[in-house]
């Protein structure tokens, strides 16, 4: 993948995440498997999408809260590891590639809100006085033009930070790739791999998000239904 295209995708996804529209087009469970498939790394994209989406379902962007940005973190990880020919993901076995991508994306997920924090502060300190001065002067034309400038500046900052994040992933990627390669295909203990364990953490979080709400009884009904399906699956496979 070309670095300019990678930065453009990150910027568009970031703009959709809160300043423009919020259509959730960059949600990890949709975008990352699709992008992974297009780039030839379907499993890295799929596991990134599954784990990041589920892990952050309970992080709600209410009021001035700054929840983790799983879409941007997943994109930085997937696109950063895919840069170059052959890319790091091309050189790693599938399991090691998935583990490496997850090791890059999960910490980035909690670092990504700093971009939004910086943009909110720029809006408050730089753009707000200009809007208010235009309103004070009754200049509706200037008010109209200012929003375009805010969006350009927001896109510029997102592109700059995405470029830096991709460089960072490119630098730490080989190091984490060596770690990913050192992991056995299924964990030494209990034969579980990293992706399944992270998904278990994420599903636990989802239960916490749901259990305290109106869906409590529905949660247990769903669990019972899941148990029946799992038992049928197990009987079909082993009986």
């Amino acid at each position, binding site marked *: 993948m070309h670095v300019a295209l990678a930065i453009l995708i990150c910027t568009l996804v970031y703009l959709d995440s809160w300043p423009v529209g919020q259509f959730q087009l960059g949600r990890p469970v949709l975008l990352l498997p699709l992008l992974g498939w297009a780039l030839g790394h*379907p499993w890295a994209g799929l596991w990134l999408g599954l784990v990041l989406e589920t892990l952050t379902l309970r992080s709600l962007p209410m009021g001035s809260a700054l929840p983790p940005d799983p879409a941007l973190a997943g994109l930085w990880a997937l696109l950063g590891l895919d840069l170059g020919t052959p890319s790091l993901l091309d050189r790693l076995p599938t399991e090691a590639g998935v583990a490496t991508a997850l090791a890059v994306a999960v910490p980035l997920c909690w670092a990504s809100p700093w971009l939004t924090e910086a943009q909110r502060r720029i809006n408050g300190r730089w753009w707000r006085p200009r809007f208010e001065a235009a309103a004070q002067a009754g200049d509706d034309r200037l008010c109209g033009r200012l929003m375009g400038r805010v969006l350009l500046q927001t896109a510029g900052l997102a592109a700059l930070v995405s470029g830096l994040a991709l460089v960072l992933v490119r630098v730490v990627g080989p190091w984490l790739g060596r770690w990913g390669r050192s992991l056995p295909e299924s964990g030494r203990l209990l034969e579980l791999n990293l992706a399944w364990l992270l998904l278990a953490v994420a599903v636990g979080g989802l239960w916490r998000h749901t259990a305290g709400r109106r*869906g409590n009884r529905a949660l247990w009904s769903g669990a019972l239904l899941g148990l029946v399906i799992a038992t049928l699956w197990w009987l079909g496979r082993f009986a």
Partner: protein
Amino acid sequence: MSVRLPSSVFWRSLLIQGAWNYQGMQHLGYLWALLPIVRQLPKDERRAALLRATEFYNAHPYLCGYLLGAASTLEATGQGPALSRLKRAGVTPLGVTGDRLFWAGLKPLSGVLGMLGFLVLVITPPVADDRHWLTALGVAVAATVGYNVIHVHWRRKALHDGRRLGLGLAGALRELAHLPLLAASGLALGLISGLTLPLLAAMGAGGKPLGVLALLATAVLSWQLPARSWALPVLLAAVFLFQSL
């Protein structure tokens, strides 16, 4: 003066968070979305309308249309000064309803549906089959499209209801807290979230009893984590460390 609601207000309302800041929150996006309405006013009334629009505003972004629609009616009928009071009364119910309906209900629900599609793909042999992949992707696409159909419907409905109700919006907002969709989304989210844990535990470990127990234990540990900001990162670090041993 006639009450006209230009369609550009709808498109502009998509940028309600475009210049979000800690001082006035969504007020600059609100001001920008309101400009087509302000431009219909006589020149001597525009400055006052612009200044009113720069007052604090923060509600759910998808439901901002209620106040934008009401503003079009009030500004055009010379009741602009009442708008500040309506805004203050409206932001909390709009914020709470929108957060419950979209952020805590429909958004996680569509995410879990997409996740279930891929979970089934992962455990269904042959896993490398493109048709399986496309089916799972189709589930994720359908979940996102479904979410957006509801979201855009609410954006349009809010704008037109707000315009129709004008000052009567304050009373109508109370009804929003009793939307049947709120209860339905909560129930659906509960049911589908409940499905995920047994499926994950049974199938993720390939039916091996110790693996099933380990996945269940990890999920229950995460479920019961204390509500501290450090708890989840510590658990995630522990998982990475455990795998590296």
